[in-house]
């Protein structure tokens, strides 16, 4: 930053009263061609992904990879232990008595898949991120209560303070503010 004192604009934050207003506004912002923007709501609003034009989440693929690692790794851990590391004959069963290995294989598949789902989700969301410019707005505190917001970043090539403000107010925003970063 060349001038550390000067505050840089993060973008605009528009407030909406209902999920319906948010939904309709998202469609307008999407159709206007914005890319670096987001909707914020106290709960996931049904169909908002489509209204925002988001691609499907890649999370299932992360989970699938983790499931394979857990399953294959879990099974061969047991095979390796029973065949090579510590071979013992128990109940006259072969070393690789695979039916006995099913429960642990299953549990490790589930365990690693769950790690993939949870930590993959946080990773894709870039969380934890304890500070965000939007937290500078006092009104934004109600996003976890009963208000709905759209934020459009100043970095978006489409962004122009006046034009974007107009778009948002036409889309039904009840309050629009500029957020500094």
């Amino acid at each position, binding site marked *: 930053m060349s001038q550390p004192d000067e505050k840089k604009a993060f973008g605009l934050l528009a407030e909406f009263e209902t999920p319906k207003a948010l939904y309709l506004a*998202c469609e307008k912002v999407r159709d206007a061609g914005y890319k670096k923007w987001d909707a914020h709501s*106290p709960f996931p609003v049904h169909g908002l992904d489509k209204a925002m034009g*988001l691609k499907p989440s890649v999370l299932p693929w992360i989970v699938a990879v983790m499931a394979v690692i857990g399953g294959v790794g879990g099974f061969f851990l047991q095979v390796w232990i029973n065949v090579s*590391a510590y071979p013992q004959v128990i109940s006259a069963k072969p070393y690789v008595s695979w039916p006995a290995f099913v429960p642990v294989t299953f*549990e490790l598949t589930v365990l690693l898949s*769950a790690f993939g789902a949870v930590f993959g989700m946080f990773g894709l969301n870039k969380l934890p991120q304890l500070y965000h410019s939007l937290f500078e707005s006092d009104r934004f505190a109600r996003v976890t209560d009963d208000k709905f917001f759209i934020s459009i970043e100043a970095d978006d090539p489409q962004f122009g303070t006046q034009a974007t403000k107009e778009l948002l107010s036409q889309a039904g925003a009840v309050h629009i503010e500029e957020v500094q970063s």
Partner: protein
Amino acid sequence: MDNTIDPEVGRAPLVLGGESFHSVTETVCAPVEWKETPKAWWAVLFLSSLLLGVLGVSIGYLFWEGVGIWGLSQPVSWAWDITNFVFWVGIGHAGTLISAILFLFRQKWRTSVNRFAEAMTIFAVMCAGIYPAIHVGRVWLLYWVFPLPNQMDAWPNFRSPLLWDVFAVSTYLTVSALFWYVGLVPDLATLRDRAKGKIQKIAYGIASLGWRGSNRHWQHYEKAYLILAGLSTPLVLSVHTIVSFDFAVSQLPGWHTTIFPPYFVAGAIFSGFAMVINLMIIARWLFKLENLVTMRHFENMAKVILLTGSIVGYAYAMEFFVAWYSNNPYELFAFVNRMTGPYWWAYWSMVVCNVVIPQLFWFKKVRTSLFWLFVISVFVNIGMWFERFVIIVTSLHRDFLPSSWMYFRPTIWDISTFLGTWGVFFFMFCLFVRFLPMVAISEVKGVMPEASPHHDDKEGAHA
């Protein structure tokens, strides 16, 4: 308003009393934001801390002296320790059923009770985990159950159901805790945004990871939630299946039966729902959650108890039938001995509590009366404790050699350890209701009719 009957068109509301998004936040956050903690909370915390102390002393003495302080001997070398383990794990299962299986079945009423039930799961599994850890005798060698490289070059026996149990229960605890935490993050953000004090702001701020309700986040979040529900469903079924393998894979008459896995899972859900009802009736009254946790919720849970109780009753009958039909004298003896032997009182307590009393739930008047819901649920919990006791002790106490038969009696240390785990359970619950939102705020808002983006549409409204 009675929301136990669906209207002729559409569905009965899940949230009553004309609550708005904001009032839901207020209702749920109220106990967390109390200016003054009520005396009742301190009283429960104090009592559970006492029991926690009892547990500490019991375990300390156990480590000093060994498992001989319990009433164990040969042939009953396994009694209250494993009874209580199965009892607590079973209670946990209702939480996962509500959070995962009902989620997959799109049972939206679950949203008011799932946070509470999941908390119960985690605390119950914590209580359960104590028993296998302390009953191994040489507790300092407990790490042998994990596949860790060690100086003896020895590895665990992966053909043993007891080892499967280690993996099942620890996976269950881990996944349940993760699932619970993922659900908590948006609600912790609500508490963060409402926090007044500095400590609260920092604590809830860190715990909520900087959640800002972003829809780009919700998208991955909802997918993760769905996947976790999909993973937890087979997981919860596998856990009690594997717990039942502890018995079914052995060759003891009374244990060696293929009916055990489904019968144990049904019993677990049965006892867990009873515990949810008991705790929820108290919490709903103390924390004024009547609009969120309605009679419909209780009625639905009573129906699950009726179903699973009947499955359990069927299993008791089928076990006995197969023992007779198998023509195996040892098997038949084990079951006749259960009913008419020295532990007849335990067997018949179990049958009355688990099979007979829950049948009262056929009556709607009983299903919708908080008093009867509470009383019957207490009976179910007692009955399910007896079920595990009966299965374990009556199968062991008269083995193949009549000269070694014995009558197991618990010692004071058996009883104190069991009471102590109730201390753990209630202590954790006290902290939970005081510091965390006990109803899933964002999920409840999501099932309210006004949450739909098509709420006011004239045509095609599907609230």
